[in-house]
């Protein structure tokens, strides 16, 4: 074995990023700047959605241009369940709504898994550009369904009047809600790290590098990819539920292809297949949005320039710049 430093440079960068992300809202809270806590929460929730996508896109090389579907579905689960609870009218078959976040997350995970399974099973019969287009098509179907379904606000979206509850925590307080999101992000990162290091991750990453090689050792790429796609969708779904609670609002825009593109941009900015790539990407993205958005409404033009530079000169994204090339044992 080659000599390995106790902590790799990437680990140090990751720890610093995690601490910065925690320190920022704590400081803002101490100074009573609620807005910055919300900003940090936005980073954390977008990062969580992108960690989910990173399983499919980063590890598996499956460029899903339809992950907004799962992000939005998670959001609608939160919105619909809380609306029914708020209005005290039962959902289908007499099932009650709920304002409990853990229950909402569980439902979001199940719904996203159930929807992702057939979408993945069909989409994964294709590769490359066709895969991108077919995932986009599925997401757009769900988008237009939400737009045209008046029961839950249609195009206007659905408001969540009071943020959903978490046992023992006052979620109306911005810092508490941030901490819930932060803990979930850390758990998701832990799961991503475990998956990547396990046999599943080895097969998934080998399939990204060379699907023929994977098949030649007797592992069917399709099965591995389908599981990755479903797990990826579930994680993005939880982020969607949190996003709805953050904004106290869910609308079809969460399901639109802009959102899918945004999630991909986060990963490219941060560094794909890297553990903290989505975190770094979300930090950079939201800061650009905030800093440039205050100066010009055409801030996305500058985002485009930055993205261009990353793709041309820093293929490994922000993590690649900070921590060097990815290593595989």
């Amino acid at each position, binding site marked *: *074995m*080659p000599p390995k430093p106790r902590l790799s440079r990437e680990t140090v960068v990751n720890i610093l990023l995690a601490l910065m992300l925690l320190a920022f809202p704590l400081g803002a809270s101490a100074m009573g700047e609620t807005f910055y806590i919300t900003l940090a929460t936005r980073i954390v929730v977008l990062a969580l959605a992108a960690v989910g996508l990173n399983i499919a896109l980063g590890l598996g090389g499956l460029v899903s241009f339809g992950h907004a579907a799962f992000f939005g579905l998670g959001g609608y689960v939160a919105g619909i369940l809380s609306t029914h609870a708020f209005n005290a009218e039962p959902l289908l078959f007499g099932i009650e709504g709920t304002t409990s976040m853990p229950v909402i997350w569980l439902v979001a995970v199940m719904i996203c898994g159930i929807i992702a399974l057939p979408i993945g099973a069909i989409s994964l019969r294709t590769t490359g550009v066709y895969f991108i287009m077919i995932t986009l098509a599925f997401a757009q179907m769900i988008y237009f369904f939400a737009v045209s379904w008046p029961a839950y606000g249609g195009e206007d979206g659905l408001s969540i009047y009071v943020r959903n509850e978490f046992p023992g925590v006052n979620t109306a307080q911005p810092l508490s809600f941030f901490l819930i999101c932060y803990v979930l992000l850390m758990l998701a990162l832990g799961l991503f790290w*475990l*998956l990547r*290091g*396990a*046999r*599943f*991750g*080895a*097969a998934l*990453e*080998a399939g990204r*590098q*060379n699907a*023929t*090689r*994977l*098949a*030649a*050792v*007797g*592992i*069917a*790429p399709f*099965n*591995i990819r389908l*599981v990755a796609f479903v797990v990826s969708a579930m994680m993005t779904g939880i982020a969607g539920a949190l996003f709805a609670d953050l904004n106290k609002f869910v609308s079809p825009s969460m399901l639109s292809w802009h959102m899918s593109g945004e999630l991909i941009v986060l990963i490219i900015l941060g560094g794909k297949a890297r553990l903290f790539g989505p975190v770094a990407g979300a930090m950079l993205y939201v800061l650009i949005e905030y800093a440039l958005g205050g100066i010009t409404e055409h801030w996305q033009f500058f985002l485009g320039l930055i993205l261009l530079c990353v793709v041309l000169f820093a293929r490994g994204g922000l993590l690649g710049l900070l921590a060097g090339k*990815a290593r*595989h*044992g």
Partner: protein
Amino acid sequence: MAEPVLEIRELRKNFGALAATDGVSLDLRPGEIHALIGPNGAGKSTLIHQISGSIRSDSGTIRFLGQDMAGLDMAARARLGLGRSFQISSLAPEFSSLRNVMLAVQAKQGSSLRFFRPVMGDRSLTDPAMAMLERVGLAERAHLPAAELSHGERRQLEIAIALALGSKAFLFDEPMAGMGPEGSKSLTTFLDGLRHEAPILLVEHDMDAVFALADRISVLVYGRVIATGTVDEIRNDPEVRRAYLGETA
């Protein structure tokens, strides 16, 4: 005569008007190295692809260990014990040599749907993988990404992977290509010993290696087997000399 391990009958594959495989029949018997030779474009690689399942045949049968391979994809055939190397090395380039072999060990052990235990600390994966790298002489390169290996080393790595799969027959497509004379020589010695583990269907242009190793040779020309026999029979076959060896021998 022992049952053949691999039995190919009347196999065909057309690409448009081109008959790449035109009614090929051949056997691979236990313990033998069966060399497949022929000029460029004779259809050798197409035949290997058909046997391993990466190209679907138009007609004909392939039986492996008595089982019909029709309808089985490449992954399923690999699981049954059909190990292959590729004409152009096909590896996971970002993974180290060790991880490439570990992938095969993991595949052999069963399901890859295991989500939590880290592979790098798993001795049941690393130990057999390391042993295979040692057998092919790549142990020193274990931690180098496959992309950084030389051509010859990638060939050795593919063979280590096929070994790790516990293959019951090997399909090697030009394993000597890109190797220096030293490398070919040591690989020849290695393959010579390997035939007792599992028979080898060997596509190879290096005639010294073919004549040194082969128990039987089949000559493929324009998708047809024009002759099958021992080294001496093939050397003295007038049709083979005219079609192929005449240019080189």
